[in-house]
């Protein structure tokens, strides 16, 4: 028993009517990497927030090193030797690395003494764990990989023995993720315990010793990683068999639907975000744009769909130009056969306070079939919404429900249904499965392939490399605003990873 670092007994937590954690029991062995996997909303983050003292459990016990502890706030968690690396980094962006690491553990009222001490301690940690970072760099100027390193150092600085990482690879390049895993192995070899929360099965298989699966607030199973398989874990997560590979036939590309030529876009500060990008998109093919978030993909989508003005370049839709450098009008583009599923459905794709049926016609509300003279034809709108709900299996099937009350996957289906069902020539999709659970991902992927097979031209932007590789017929890789390479659907992850990291050329990752 003495090799158990953390034990949870009967943890229960509700947020109003939502039962987030139901009678959770969990044992994490000391000196191991323990994965916790589950779909979005399965209750993983809630459970870890309880362990870190961010929320209080309604009932249940937490034992650290075999002793029952009461973790009422993050202070108590830190005192118990628990550190957490949050999904959204808890860093003050305009502070230096050193200031962030010190914050809350400054030692003395006057900073000068503490700074000197922290510098020495930081150097020691850097040596011990191979986590170099410039202590005087300002956080907002560091790449995300290094920001995450600062979060880890913050926990180690507070002498954490148990490290919780919440979806740590979401913002990292494949190379950065690999480096993170090496760091975690290193921590493990030094006797630290690591809890890794993720929804990516591959990561679980690659690095954990044991894995616990959560589904709808319950802990459904714990397995030794070496003795389980991706298929078994996926089934445990979803509660039924899931097809992990998307089946699709050969693409039959037709004529060019969308031609992008020398497109350059700058952001509000005048920084070039898209740099002289050219490509063609043909009917009946899916072109995937891979890249680490923030390398210009978002701006590219916005420019093509008429939301953001480009500085130079041209875009032709069905052979006719779009005024990307002038007043391109999204609703005009929509009428010309270009549909857009935006990356950020909460801010751009949906009005969360509207009813489902209102969102289902957003942007198409001038369509004659929804109108009765100058008034909306509410009956027609609802009837149409009900049809879509049935086709796309949107749950709960209630067109009058406020959109905010649908889960991420169902919200995404509302947007997809709206944009796909008009039969556009060109479909532009950003992050189709961000925050969407495994079951819905399967559905969305199948739908996208169906659209392609019906002859639609699909431009797909995703930060999930697996998704790009599974769906695309051609893959373009963006780095620092430029398209740095084009590959076929059989490109290896290592090859794409190097391109995404800005290492040009065809050097393969060391096998």
């Amino acid at each position, binding site marked *: 028993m003495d090799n158990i670092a953390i034990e949870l007994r009967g943890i229960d937590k509700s947020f109003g009517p939502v039962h987030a954690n139901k009678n959770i029991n969990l044992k994490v062995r000391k000196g191991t990497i323990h994965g916790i996997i589950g779909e979005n909303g399965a209750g993983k983050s809630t459970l870890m927030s309880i362990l870190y003292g961010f929320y209080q459990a309604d009932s249940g016990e937490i034992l650290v090193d075999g002793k029952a502890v009461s973790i009422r706030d993050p202070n108590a968690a830190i005192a118990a030797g628990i550190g957490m690396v949050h999904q*959204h980094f808890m860093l003050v962006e305009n502070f230096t690395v050193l200031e962030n690491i010190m914050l809350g553990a400054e030692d003395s009222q006057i900073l000068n003494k503490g700074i000197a001490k922290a510098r020495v301690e930081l150097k020691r940690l850097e040596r011990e764990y191979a986590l170099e970072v410039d202590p005087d760099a300002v956080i907002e100027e560091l790449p995300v990989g290094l920001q995450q390193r600062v979060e880890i150092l913050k926990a180690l600085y507070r002498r954490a023995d148990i490290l919780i990482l919440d979806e740590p690879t979401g913002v990292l390049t494949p190379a950065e993720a690999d480096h993170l895993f090496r760091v975690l192995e290193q921590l493990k070899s030094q006797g630290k315990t690591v809890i890794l929360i993720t929804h990516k099965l591959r990561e679980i298989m690659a690095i954990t010793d044991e894995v616990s699966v959560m589904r709808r607030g319950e802990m459904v199973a714990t397995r030794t990683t070496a003795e389980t398989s991706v298929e078994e874990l996926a089934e445990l997560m979803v509660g039924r068999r899931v097809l992990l590979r998307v089946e699709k036939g050969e693409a039959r590309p037709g004529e060019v639907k969308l031609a992008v030529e020398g497109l350059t876009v700058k952001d509000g500060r005048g920084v070039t975000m898209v740099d002289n990008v050219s490509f063609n998109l043909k009917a009946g093919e899916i072109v995937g744009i891979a890249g680490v978030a923030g390398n210009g993909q978002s701006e590219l989508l916005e420019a093509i769909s008429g939301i953001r003005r480009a500085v130079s370049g041209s875009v032709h839709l069905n052979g006719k130009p779009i005024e990307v450098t002038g007043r391109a009008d999204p609703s005009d583009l929509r009428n010309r056969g270009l549909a857009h599923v935006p990356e950020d459905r909460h801010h751009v794709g949906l009005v969360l306070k509207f009813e489902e049926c209102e969102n289902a016609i957003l942007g198409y509300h001038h369509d004659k079939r929804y109108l009765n003279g100058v008034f909306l034809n509410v009956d027609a709108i609802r009837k149409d919404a009900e049809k879509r709900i049935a086709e796309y299996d949107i749950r709960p099937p209630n067109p009058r429900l406020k959109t905010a009350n649908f889960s991420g996957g169902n919200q995404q289906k509302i947007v997809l249904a709206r944009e796909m069902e008009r039969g556009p020539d060109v479909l532009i999709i950003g992050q189709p499965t961000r925050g969407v659970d495994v079951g819905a991902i399967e559905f969305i992927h199948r739908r996208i392939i169906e659209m392609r097979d019906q002859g639609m031209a699909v431009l797909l932007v995703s930060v999930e490399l697996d998704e790009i590789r599974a769906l695309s017929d051609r893959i373009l890789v963006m780095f620092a605003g430029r398209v740095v390479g084009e590959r076929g659907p059989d490109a290896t992850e290592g090859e794409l990873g190097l391109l995404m990291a800005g290492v040009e050329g065809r050097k393969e990752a060391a096998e």
Partner: protein
Amino acid sequence: MDFFHVLVVLLESTIRVSVPLIFAALAGLFTERAGIFDIGLEGKMLGAAFAAGAVAAVTQSVWMGLLAAILISIALSLVHGYASITQRGNQIVSGVAINFIVAGSTVILGEAWFRQGGRTPALGEGARFQTITFPYADSIREIPILGPIYSDLLSGHFILTYVAFAMVPISWWILYRTRFGLRLRAVGENPGAVDTAGISVIWMRYRAVICCGILCGFAGAYLSLAMTAGFVKGMTAGKGYIALAALIFAKWRPFNIMLACLLFGFLDALAIRLQGNPLPLIGQVPVQLMQALPYILTVILLAGFIGKAIPPKAGGVPYVKER
């Protein structure tokens, strides 16, 4: 009157009118750096001025007046804090409410207690601040250039004037060189980082609000105990808003705040100086235009000349843990 003499007089009155601005803008610095918008500087200053005038009139003690000013101002700050920190209300609404309540209640209470049309009784010598004359100020006044600078510009101000200018480096030191300051700035940028570091966001913000109260207390006391001898209704006359403009103009930095306040003070002094005097070339300028100048300047300069003023990131947003 030669040009130099005019300049010294102008600068002297610049300093005089800048003092309440500096106090109030530094007060706003503490709250806004902690992530709480504070449009209620005006009201706190006015409340403090009234408390100072009333208590000094009754007790005949300038120090009791100052103490009362600080206490009332802290109390008003805590009301703002309770509404915006604990109850997570809208910070602008709460600040405006304080301005209105104070503007009305000072007149009502003043009339009820002293029956002088909302004024407090004129204060005698012991009940108001006296100017401090530096040693030899009179004897070296005749020395050209340096004499007037020493005797008129540096010497002959109230103790609160010197306190105000001392508060600039002190505020900088607190914000940038102490643990309290580090946490205060952090709470205004990313309260989540502070919370996960095991520090109470609520308590940090309350402490910031109290700092603001103290400084607004000084600002109010200066108005009714130093600049004039007693409280007059509405005597802040928008100084709280000018201080707020100076704070934004200065991009939330202590030394810039001092310079911005001096600039606005200078414009104010110039407006007074030019009343009734025609400008060369332009001729008679309406006094209202001169009075509006600080605001016009803020708008113009903020619109492009000083670059973007980036406020503390968490400003105006009550802290709620996820969900």
